[in-house]
Every structure is written in C-alpha cells, then in structure tokens.
C-alpha cells in the first residue's frame, strides 16, 4: 500500500465514522433546534475560527476555495469532555464527533469546485430525570429518559474562482438533510405493577440554502473577506402526515487577515446570525467573534486564538454567552501529500444559573493525492 493510498483510506475511515458518533455539543441546544456546528477545519479551529474565512479546507466562505491548487480531502474529529453544572449538581459528559469532511480541487483553469459534509445542527442528547409520582393513591418512583440521536447535516457544493489577481469570489448551494432518532421512555421502580413506557420516532429534515462570499487580497499582506448565507426553511417530517417548517437564519460575516511577516499572520472575524426566527422566545440572534494568530511555516506552526459570542438557544430571555480559546499545531507527511493537525479548545458557556465548560481535543487529516 502506498503512502498516498493509505492516507486516502484513513480519510475515508474518519469520514465514515462521522455519521454514527455525534453527541450533543451543548446543553443549551437541547431546548432549541440543537447546537450549531462550526464550519471550520482543524487548522482553523486552532485559531478559534479566525482564519476560517480564508481557509480552503473550511466550509465557511466559498471564496476561499479559490486558494486550492490540488485535489484535497480533509476530515476532522473532535472529542469533548464537557462539565455541566446545573446548580444542584454537576456531571461530566464525553462525546466524539466528526463535524467536517470536505473535498475540493481545481477543475478548469482558476475555477475550483469543492464540497462535502459539515454539521449544521447537532441534536444528540440524553437526559435522565428521576421523579416520584402519585398514581392510584400511591407514590411511584419513575425514571424518565429522553434521547435524541442525530442532527442536521450540511451538504455543500461550491465553486470559487479568482477574478483578476486580488479578488476571489465563490458561491455554494447547501442541501440540509439528516434525521434525529428520538426516544422517550419512562421506567417505573415498581415493575410488578407498572410497565415501562417507550416511544420512538424519527424526525427527518430537508432544507436548501445558498451562500456567497468574496475575498480581497491587498498586496498579499492584508486580506478581507465577506460572506453571507441564507438557509431558507427547514422542513421537519415526523411521519408522512406530520410535518412542520421552521425558518433558518441568514448568516452575515466579515473577516480580516494580516500577514505581519513571512511566517506570522493575524486574523479576526465577526459573524452574525438571526437565529431568533427559527424558534420561540428562547431563540436569539447571535454575534460571534474570533481573533487568532499563526506563527511558523507549514512545519509545526503554532496556531492559537480566542473566540466569544452567544449561543442561539437557552432559557431566561437572554442569549447564553460563550467564550474560549484554542491552540494547536500540525505537520505534513508523505512529501506533502498528507497533513495532520491536532489541537485543543477550551470553551465556557453561561446562561442564567447554568454553566458548562468544555475541553475539546480535535484532529484533522488532510490528503492531497
């Protein structure tokens, strides 16, 4: 087996596992549509997403595809350890996700086509609740379990090209698809008299969105990016007779990248989404920001960044807040045909009396055959 083939196979393994192992990214998403995914490659996530708009491996701005010079595939994995503090107690939740898989490459002169999978909304959760009910005059201890497994995936097909030597533009269409298997069960402690309750269902999702973006390169030292996206409506189908539509937000963002030296770059981004259109009073518009830096060349560079902003869903009439940082590095192998990035991220989220902290280790494998 050649190193090239081995790298491709590894990438496929990572991508294949992605559909099975997803877990709730935040407790705040349980009550809403879910937890929004980050459309960032592992390399961009190390900078807290600050470089994502300029990263051809990320799925944030289609115009960045124009930087792609070879057929490239990348896949990410992320393992998180989340500590949830609910006031009365705390719990630690571990989960592994595979939030992104992208393939891109030039097809004709300066035209690059790309696409792939990324997590749009994560709806995996499992909530346990123990209670005592009075039934037929007697107290009965019950354990309720609510589970969801799945979410909405974003299947992107995008095209980008360079217009002249300083302007790059891109556009993409996004098919939103996926399903969540939901399950509700109630177990009675007194199994001799009461039977357990179990109901399962599957919610399927359909939606269509579009995105456009542009990047301007000023003398190869300063780059500015603007991006926008509209996702229309998300159709939810529980069975052929029950369906509903929810509005999805539009996304507006801008980013800047400054090359201070040959191996030192800074970047920052701001992204706005009007999530309040998609749910009830517990949904909020969000404004996220990030600032990051990359020091060093392609060999073991140091990448780091901080991010902040809001989460779109949460109780209490106010958007939960999120702040955190990330750092990591990467290296190439197989004469530049492969690249492995690895990093760590810390996030802290607060909303009312609820607080959660997340440590995530993530890795990305990129193959350029």
């Amino acid at each position: 087996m050649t190193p090239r083939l081995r790298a491709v196979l590894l990438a496929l393994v990572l991508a294949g596992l992605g559909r099975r192992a997803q877990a709730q990214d935040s407790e705040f998403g349980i009550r809403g549509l879910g937890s929004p995914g980050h459309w960032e490659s592992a390399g961009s996530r190390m900078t807290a997403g600050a470089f994502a708009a300029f990263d051809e491996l990320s799925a944030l701005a289609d115009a960045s595809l124009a930087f792609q010079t070879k057929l490239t595939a990348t896949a990410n994995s992320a393992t998180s350890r989340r500590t949830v503090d609910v006031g009365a107690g705390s719990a630690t939740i571990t989960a592994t996700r595979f939030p992104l898989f992208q393939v891109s490459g030039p097809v004709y002169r300066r035209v690059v086509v790309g696409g792939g999978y990324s997590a749009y909304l994560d709806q995996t959760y499992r909530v346990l609740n123990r209670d005592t009910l009075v039934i037929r005059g007697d107290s009965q201890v019950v354990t309720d379990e609510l589970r969801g497994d799945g979410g909405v995936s974003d299947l992107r097909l995008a095209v980008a090209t360079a217009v002249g030597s300083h302007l790059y533009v891109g556009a993409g269409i996004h098919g939103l698809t996926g399903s969540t298997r939901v399950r509700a069960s109630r177990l009675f402690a007194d199994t001799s008299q009461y039977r357990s309750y179990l109901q399962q269902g599957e919610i399927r999702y359909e939606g269509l969105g579009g995105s456009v973006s542009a990047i301007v390169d000023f003398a190869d030292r300063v780059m500015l990016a603007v991006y926008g996206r509209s996702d229309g409506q998300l159709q939810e189908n529980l069975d052929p007779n029950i369906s509903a539509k929810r509005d999805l937000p539009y996304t507006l963002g801008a980013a800047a990248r400054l090359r201070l030296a040959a191996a030192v770059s800074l970047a920052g981004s701001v992204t706005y989404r009007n999530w309040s259109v998609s749910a009830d009073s517990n949904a909020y518009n969000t404004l996220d920001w990030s600032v990051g830096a990359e020091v060093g060349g392609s060999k073991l560079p140091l990448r780091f960044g901080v991010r902040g902003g809001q989460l779109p869903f949460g109780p209490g009439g106010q958007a939960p807040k999120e702040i955190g940082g990330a750092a990591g590095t990467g290296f190439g192998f197989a004469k530049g045909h492969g690249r492995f990035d690895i990093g760590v991220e810390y996030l802290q989220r607060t909303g009312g009396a609820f607080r959660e902290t997340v440590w995530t280790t993530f890795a990305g494998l990129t193959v350029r055959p």
Partner: protein
Amino acid sequence: MRRRTVWRLGLLSGVAGLALVACSESPAAPAQCPEFCPPTQFGLVDTILAMGIGRDSSFTGYITPIEAPVMLAEEVPGLDSRAIFRTGAILPNLLPRSGDTTTAPIHVDSIRLSLTLQFRDTSVHNLVLHFFKLPLTIDTTTTFADVQGDFAAPEIRSVNVDSLVAKFGTRDTVTGDSVVSLNDTTREVVLSLRFDTLQVPYVAADSGKVAFGVRVSADSAAHIAIGASDAGAGPVITWFNSVDSVGVLVSRIAQPRLAVFDAFVFDPPTAALDSNLTVGGMPTSRALLRVALPRWLRDSTQIIRATLYLVPTAPATGFTADSYFISAGRLAIDVGRKSPLAFDTAAFNSVPIHPGYADTVRIEVTGMLRTWQVDTSAQMAMYLRQFTITGQLLGRLQGTEGATFSSMRFYPTSAAPYRPALHITYVPLIRFTIP
C-alpha cells in the same frame, strides 16, 4: 528505523486512538427541566373505563366430575359429595415359577390401596374416610341416587386420617396403614391403606376389578379432595398374590392397577347459572368478558397498568382453609362457549380469593391489554376462570381448574352500578418536537 517510518507509525497510532475514543461515549446529562430538557412532555392519565367491558356471559360444563383432577368428598350442610372409582382388572393366573409352561390361579394375600389426599384442611379434625363397595357398573352416568343404596350398606372399613398422620412414624402397626408422604406446602398426603381379603375379596369372575365409594366424616365440615387419574394422582390398588406350585404357595410379584374410572357424585346438584357472572363451582363455570377498548386508547396510548374490577354478588363460598384463584386469560379466538385460551403467560394473571371475601376483586390485566395494543387483529376477549393449587412440580405450585365446589359470582354488565370495569393508567402518545 527511518525517521519517515516513525512519523507514519505515530500518525497511524493517532488515528487508531481517535477511532477507539469514538467508540466510548457518555452523553447522559442530568435533567434541569424544563429549562434544559427537550420540549417532549410525558403525560399520565389514570381513569376508570366503566364501559370497558362491552359484553359478558357465563358458561358452565368446562370440567365435570368425570374430568376433574380430583374426586371431591364432602359432607357439609347443604352438600354431600362422595368419591367413586373402579380399578382395573388383574391377571387371574400366573406362572408359579419362571420356566413353568402352565399357569395357575392366583391366591390373594392382601390388598393395598394408595390414595392421594390433596389440600387436606388441617383445621378439620377427626377426618375419617369410609370405604364402601360399589357395583362394577358405575360409570359416567352414575348419579348420587344410583349409589345411595350402596353407601347405605355397611362400610368395608374406615380410616381416621388425623390419627394415622399423628402416629409415630406415620404408620399404624395394627391395621398396616401408613402415610407414604406428607407435603406441608400443598398439604398433600399420600396414604397406603391395607385391606384384607374379607374386606375386599378377590372375585376371579371380575378379574379383580373392584369399585369403591368413599365418604368422609369429621367433627365439622368434612371435606377432602382425592387425587384422580385425570391429574395423574388417581387411586392405585395393589394385589399381593401367590400361586400354588405343587402344594406350595409361591409368592409372585404384586399386581398394581390404576383406577380406570374415577369421579364423584353429589347432592344436591349445582344451581343453574343466573344472569350473574359465575366463576368456578362444579361443573366448572367460566365468565367470558368482551373488552370494549376505545380505538383512541388502543392506538394512541401506551397502557402502563390496567386492572379489571369485578364486584361480587355475594361473599366467596368455600372453606376457610381452601383458597382459590380467579384468573383472567386472553382468548385465542372468541367463538363463545368453546373459545380456546391463548398460550401466552404474559397476558395471564390471577388473584387469590379467600372464602368469605366480599370486596371488589381486582385482577391486573396490563399484559393482556398491551398485547391487544400491539396485535390489533386479536379479539379482545378473556375468560375468568377459577383454579386451585393441586400439586407441586419441580418446586413450582401447580393449579388446576375444577378442584373445588367453591364458586364466585360477579355482577354482569347489565347491572350498571356494579358492572365490571377497567381501571387504566396510560401515557398518551408523545408528540416529538413538531407541534
């Protein structure tokens, strides 16, 4: 090892590690509801379906004295019941010695009769079994009146069961009677009673066939159930015999014979069924209940508990020590009186009934109703039956129908205030996410 190889090995190990980590996941979170719970809400409804039983009827004749697992012998005010049975024929001639070519007629030395007394009431004292000789013509048509004259004749002999059980070693050295086994759990006693040839003469013309009648007496409320052949515990007579071999009586192997017919006759006959729901008695009666489960309840809920309420018309009859069970069993198909029961233990339940019990009888029927929720083509009908513990097999108690005169009557659906009802606790269908 080359540096490149080291890098490759490191990379592969990293990927393998990631794959392993991906297999371990613990996404459970403590609930902080409703703020951090899915909008899904569990409902719970507890209701009594007064019209849950749509139609009902009672049928009788399922188990008659001929088919009963026991022979009931009772002598209580208002009821006189006597066991009757006939034993099989024996070989009238046997070879005196092995190798002989001609047989010789047997000489009977003694007879032993083995009886199994099931669920003996230990509160009844001085329980005496009286044995009578009956004509060999007793059969399924024999009535109490037919054998009344034979029971009026002098008895063959009698046995005081309590005295025998109380004797040291449970053996009477004078009469030769003994207790073979005594089960404290089921209160079952197996007796081996000795008869001499004067009491039970061997009649060659009858090939040793003998018919017995058994009457019981006690200080009060004499009642006993003698095991019957239908349940594999019928009477066994053993003829101890010898053969004349050139002037010498040679003992030959004894000839045991099972009862080829056993039943019991009683007076007065059981009262006819009325408009109430009768369960038990002799011949046994069953109540057939047809359940009218509303379609919305069957299709759009999950039943987590269901209880059938039955209001008795009168206190349960029977003897203090003789409890029985009323069971509810699902029908495989509803064809009225001859409906077969479904062979599923999950949809079967019962409650113990103690004589004198007059309160509402509650039988859990959750399994049955949940079965009907799953199998909507199944006919929603059940039998109410009575059964009594009559034995123990492999450490488990065995119950059979038709082992007692006791019965219970319940108000039918036509008696509106007291009609059978279903108490149901259910969870309505949860609507996931989509309002």
